[in-house]
């Protein structure tokens, strides 16, 4: 039903991508994964990470806040146990990575680059104690510039819709990034039983903001854009396409409807922000 598209120098069989963190390591349900043009595995760090203590997920009207906190099995485990399985699925394999310093980024890229179609740099995770990287565009640009030299594989930068997305995208694309994913979750706070938790907001609540961000990015640059934020159906896809996006990343909707592809209609009729 959908045609092959080119994105970030890759040819992917359809324009739908499973978002990092919402689809495990990507191979758990081959019958689901193979329907995606590409699958982005959960963000991997050099060392295994435990993640945050529960509660980790909250529903707010129109969205979801999560504070999983990058729980992952670490680079070694991932490369040995998960990646081989992921590569057996008939879909393009992208792995999201996060390094705390240049050495870690380099180790992640060095270990993975031969095995994957592309790497996604998670520059915008709100669930870390450190500042979101894209909040400091210059520093972010400098890291990207150095990472660029380590691999010929496409590098995709995951940014968010609220920290100067257009400026950051132009800068990163100047420094050699092949594509932008906009948006990661957006910092938010939520209360449960009198305690306040910080997390990242996703879902249709953020769509208007991501749409605006994508329009602005597209105005400033022709970097390939993957839209990510509140996509629940064809209507949202259409809106993002008109805003200038090339491919479409399904995030928290996968928690609700892991079998959402092939996207034939909006899974609910609501949400007519365009």
């Amino acid at each position, binding site marked *: 039903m959908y045609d092959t598209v080119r994105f970030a120098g890759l040819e992917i069989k359809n324009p739908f991508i499973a978002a990092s*963190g*919402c*689809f*495990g390591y990507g191979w*758990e*349900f081959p*019958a*689901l994964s193979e329907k995606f043009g590409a699958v982005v595995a*959960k963000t991997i760090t050099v060392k295994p990470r*435990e*993640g945050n*203590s*529960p*509660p*980790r*997920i*909250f*529903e707010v*009207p*129109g*969205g*979801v806040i*999560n504070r*999983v906190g990058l*729980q992952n099995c670490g680079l070694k485990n991932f490369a040995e146990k998960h990646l081989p399985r992921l590569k057996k699925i008939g879909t393009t394999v992208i792995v999201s990575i996060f390094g705390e310093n240049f050495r870690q980024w380099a180790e992640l890229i060095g270990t993975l680059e031969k095995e994957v179609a592309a790497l996604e740099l998670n520059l915008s995770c709100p669930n870390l104690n450190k500042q979101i990287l894209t909040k400091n565009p210059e520093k972010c640009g400098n890291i990207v510039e150095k990472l660029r030299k380590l691999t010929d594989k496409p590098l995709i930068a995951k940014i968010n819709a609220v920290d100067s997305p257009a400026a950051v995208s132009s800068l990163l694309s100047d420094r050699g990034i092949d594509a932008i994913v906009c948006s990661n979750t957006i910092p938010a706070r939520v209360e449960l039983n009198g305690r306040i938790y910080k997390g990242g907001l996703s*879902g*249709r609540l953020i769509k208007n903001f991501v749409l605006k961000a994508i329009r602005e990015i597209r105005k400033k640059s022709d970097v390939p854009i993957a839209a990510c934020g509140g996509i629940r159906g064809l209507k949202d896809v259409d809106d993002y396409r008109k805003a200038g996006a090339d491919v479409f990343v399904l995030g*928290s909707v*996968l*928690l*609700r*409807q*892991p*079998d959402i592809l092939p996207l034939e209609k909006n899974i*609910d009729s*609501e949400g007519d922000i365009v």
Partner: protein
Amino acid sequence: MKLKTENGGFFVTSAEILSIKPAAEKIFLMEIKHEKISSLARPGQFVHIYCGGGTSIRRPFSIFSKTGDCIEIIFRVVGRGTEILSRKRKGDSVDLIAPLGNGFPVVCGRPLFVAGGLGVAPLHFLSLATAAGVFIYGTKRKNEIIPIESLKASGHKVVILCEETEGKKVTDIMEEYLNDCDVVFSAGPAKMMKKIAEICLKKKKKCFLSMEERMGCGIGLCRSCVVKTKTGYKRVCVDGPVFPAETVDWKDV
């Protein structure tokens, strides 16, 4: 569609509501028709329901019982999702992923069931499939008790306790029955289960707990639903919901 897993797989589907009835104050019993889900369902497994009405993620409910082509759940109206669910009518369809999770293990011997509140759901189902034992069921208030006398037909001794009227909790009386039993199954509030785990540990009884945690996907992908165990965070949805009591790390509860 059906998705495969190591323990039988599950369906992502919609199914018809055969009936929905109040079972106690703000508690509803819902009968859902789906032959294949019913045939796969094992005690301790749960269903993950999309309630609609603009909610974003699904809601998990233990399976309360099954018949030839139906499963039943009981749920309490606590928030938006369950409120919407309670307004569904006979004949409406419900969007669900089921059956999910690892059920209770099959254990030989005389069972003791200790249920608190809605924790009665998975234990009710389990007790329909085990040897005769004792079923202790406690609630906070009298109007929250759902009728489970029918379990006597399975040979169980049924003890119903209401904190408000009797001033006692299940954990106050369970030791009376413990010696006569070989294995304990429990579900209910975390604090109750913590206590039960301690009692069983002391008395060296095998004990299995059905844990609850807020869920996202329900199928192991998002890592939202973790509980702390002695070997790190485990996902309730796929590594549980049933855990051997001795593996749970209760420090933060």
